[in-house]
């Protein structure tokens, strides 16, 4: 990467009268393939690079991007952007940034097995071998990609950060059809690392086990019990719930209405810090510093140091996710939550790795004292309203719990619940913290950003299934 272009950019903007300027130069090298029903649809490789530029002129925020990386194109882009931004001054919402310590650092995520140490045929073989063992399924769809990304961030306050991160992503979508009925399952695997991720993922073992369980569910599953029951949600279900209703509503840009037009707002407002909306055993954090996590970073896309944030502490609303412009509105410093998924989109407030902290009980202990309940291992359908209050999770692999024991499979149990209803009903949290990878969508234009969602198994008392 020619980092001189980024340095040139901020100097040019200073010369043009910007009170603040930053440049984010990015370069991504990727490999990918798509497999459908045993057939390799297409393989791909590519490079993408470009420059994302942000600046303030008369307290009006301008953002510009260019992917032809030469000085003339950069100057042309900036000049066009300045023209538009100056015209916007008359209607501007004045933007200011919190004062943050300048950072100078180079860092990278180490790869034990480098992404380029295997050619495409070796990567393909791993997935083709799994596909062969699933040939009896009517629908098999797999996609794989790995990307090595380099970022250089610099601003007019003296910050310069060099960052290298490898990411591997694997996605599968399976359809099991038997006796004119079907059940489907998809899951995303993602990690910031080299190809050593495959050792921890154990794709073949996990997928084959899942398929076996779902076949039994399809053929022998019973309807879920009616009335108030207890629910044990396994880590995958805890993870999605925490992401949707324990993470999103804490994004300060939602709280201040900046994403109101599309991603929505939040049921939480500034005055609700300290308000109890969950039980004492519920603590939710967002932590970008988890090693090899899919949402890993040590400095955000505004150059602010990342840290663990306690969003909900013992059931109380505790802290919001901030960038430099939201934090100053609350007279705080940024907690390093600004992210952009590529050079061509602006950094906005995002989650990284959001999870409920584990407790000390074993999962089995959560189940043992349930008279009638449902254990939900994973899910398919889910959604939540745009203030993050009314949510739904529909179990896929799920079982009846009777007198403390897991019994026969249950078909599609539905948790349809409010956010305080959900977190207040949690009475126990197990010690089996697990993370699941996802791409979280937000912003206009939409940007999908890599995240972990996770937690331990949790027990919900006295909930009526939908």
């Amino acid at each position, binding site marked *: 990467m020619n980092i001189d272009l980024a340095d040139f950019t901020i100097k040019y903007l200073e010369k043009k009268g910007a009170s603040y300027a930053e440049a984010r130069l990015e370069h991504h090298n990727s490999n990918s393939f798509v497999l459908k029903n045993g057939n390799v649809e297409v393989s791909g490789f590519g490079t*993408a690079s470009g420059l994302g530029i942000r600046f303030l002129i008369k307290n009006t925020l301008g953002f*510009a991007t260019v992917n032809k990386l030469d000085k003339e194109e950069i100057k042309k882009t900036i000049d066009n952007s300045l023209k538009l931004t100056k015209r916007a001054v008359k209607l501007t919402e004045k933007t200011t940034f919190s004062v943050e310590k300048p950072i100078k650092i180079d860092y990278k995520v180490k790869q034990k097995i480098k992404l380029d140490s295997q050619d495409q045929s070796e990567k393909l073989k791993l997935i083709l071998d799994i596909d062969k063992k699933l040939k009896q399924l009517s629908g098999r769809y797999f996609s794989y990609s790995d990307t090595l990304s380099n970022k250089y961030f610099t601003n007019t306050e003296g910050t310069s950060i060099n960052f290298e991160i490898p990411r591997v992503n694997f996605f599968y*979508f399976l359809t099991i059809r038997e006796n004119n009925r079907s059940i489907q399952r998809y899951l995303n695997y993602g990690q910031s690392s080299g190809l050593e991720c495959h050792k921890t993922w154990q794709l073949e073992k996990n997928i084959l086990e899942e398929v076996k369980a779902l076949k039994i569910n399809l053929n022998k599953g019973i309807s879920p019990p009616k009335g108030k029951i207890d629910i044990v949600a396994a880590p995958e279900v805890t993870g999605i719930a925490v992401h949707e209703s324990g993470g999103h509503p804490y994004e300060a840009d939602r709280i201040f209405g900046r994403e109101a037009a599309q991603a929505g707002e939040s049921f939480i407002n500034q005055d609700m810090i300290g308000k109890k909306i969950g039980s004492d055993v519920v603590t939710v954090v967002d932590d970008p510093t988890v090693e090899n996590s899919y949402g890993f970073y040590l400095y955000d896309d505004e150059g602010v140091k990342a840290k663990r944030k306690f969003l909900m502490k013992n059931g109380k609303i505790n802290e919001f996710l901030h960038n430099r412009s939201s934090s100053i509105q609350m007279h705080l410093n940024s907690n390093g939550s600004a992210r952009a998924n590529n050079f061509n989109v602006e950094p906005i407030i995002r989650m990284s790795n959001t999870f409920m902290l584990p407790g000390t009980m074993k999962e089995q202990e959560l189940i043992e004292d349930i008279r009638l309940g449902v254990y939900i291992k994973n899910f398919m359908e889910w959604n939540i309203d*745009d203030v993050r209050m009314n949510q739904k999770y529909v179990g896929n692999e799920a079982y009846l719990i009777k007198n403390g024991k897991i019994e026969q499979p249950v078909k599609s149990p539905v948790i349809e619940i409010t956010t305080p209803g959900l977190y207040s*009903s949690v009475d126990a949290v197990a010690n089996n913290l697990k993370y699941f990878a996802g791409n979280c969508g937000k912003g206009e234009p939409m940007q999908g950003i890599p995240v972990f969602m996770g937690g331990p198994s949790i027990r919900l008392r006295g909930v009526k299934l939908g």
Partner: protein
Amino acid sequence: MNLINYIKNQLIKKGADDVIVYQSNHDSTQVKFVNNKIAKTETHLTSDISIFTAKSKHLISTNLKDPNKKSADEKIKNIFKFLKHTQPNKDYEGIAKGPFKYKEIPETYDKNILDMNEIDYVEKGINSALKNAKRCSGVLEKEIGSNQLVSSNGIEAEDKSTALYYSIRAFTTKEASGHMTACSRTLNKFEVSPAAKFAGEIAKKSQKPKQGKSGKYTVIFDHLPAAVLLNYTMDAASIFSVESHLSFLINKLNKKIGNFTLIDQGNLPNGLNSLKFDAEGVPTQKNIIVDKGILKTYLHNTSSAKRHKTKTTANAGIISPQSWNILLEGNQGNVFDIKKGLYITNIWYTRFQNYAEGNFSTIPRDGIFEIENGEIKQPVKNIRITESMLDILKNIQIISKETHQVKSWEASTTTITPKLLVKEVRITKPTV
């Protein structure tokens, strides 16, 4: 076209069977407004060259970062190196054979857009919304682009485009809001005020909503939610979705799925997604996907069409055929002519439990109203539609005469949609 022709010729010379090189250049801007003020401007200069190569059914997709001959030569060398490590696509049947003649699509390029003042339009929209609402947020986007395509089968195609997109969401209170979008390819057909006025009026009417009740309802879907439902239907009509079991239209070919006609049209005048040619260079056309309720065809490219013994519908995507602009025709009437029901002005977060069976749920947002004797009455909140897409399609009773061109987060394919009247829609609500 010099560089993309050079890439194509070099790849053929070195032994490729099929080659498509596609260059696009786009200049775009966005003005984002939040709480009645401008929060940010965006300006983008983007130039991309994508390269598709097939050799002995090994398919490679890549891009060229630096548009010069030296980079192109290096890329070509790497394509052949990479090819050796891939597997053949046994289903691949080649790309379209040209040359083709292309007709100009009316109202897809307007040089007046280049000089428009976006800020004035944003201000006008805010003022319209604030006649009824207290605050509003949204975006105004402008794009000027050009696309060029060459293929090894004698195709050379080019098109230029302009596009405008506007989205506004207005609020009176935190739980009373309205949303509408507007889009156009020409400046003289681009109006922000009607969308802003609608958003403001719905925001005013939807104040003090009560908790909605679960049950089966006759539902009027306004343009935004109708577009989302039609987008998911058209996604399900792509042969790629069908073959991947991501479609509730599997095994429905030549079967009745409703009482409407669903059209995809890539050459629609003023259609936001209209383009002269698809990703193989085939001239775009009007396709009747569902004719008076009967599913007549899936969306195809050349390869999938050969495999299914039919003709391409000019919807390539090399791998996954995609729709261009969606239109719906059917039983026209007054959708508000009902005794009792719900009026839903927007939905979001549509997710499927089973794509092949079409079981899904989606969340109404912005104004939701009870309807009594054709009139908008009490606003409601906090409900969910839990349904089967096949049942929704089967139960479309009446569509409105007036249509609106919609693009949104969940309706990424432009949809020129009427309002829909759908009977027997299942509504659920949280249990705790």
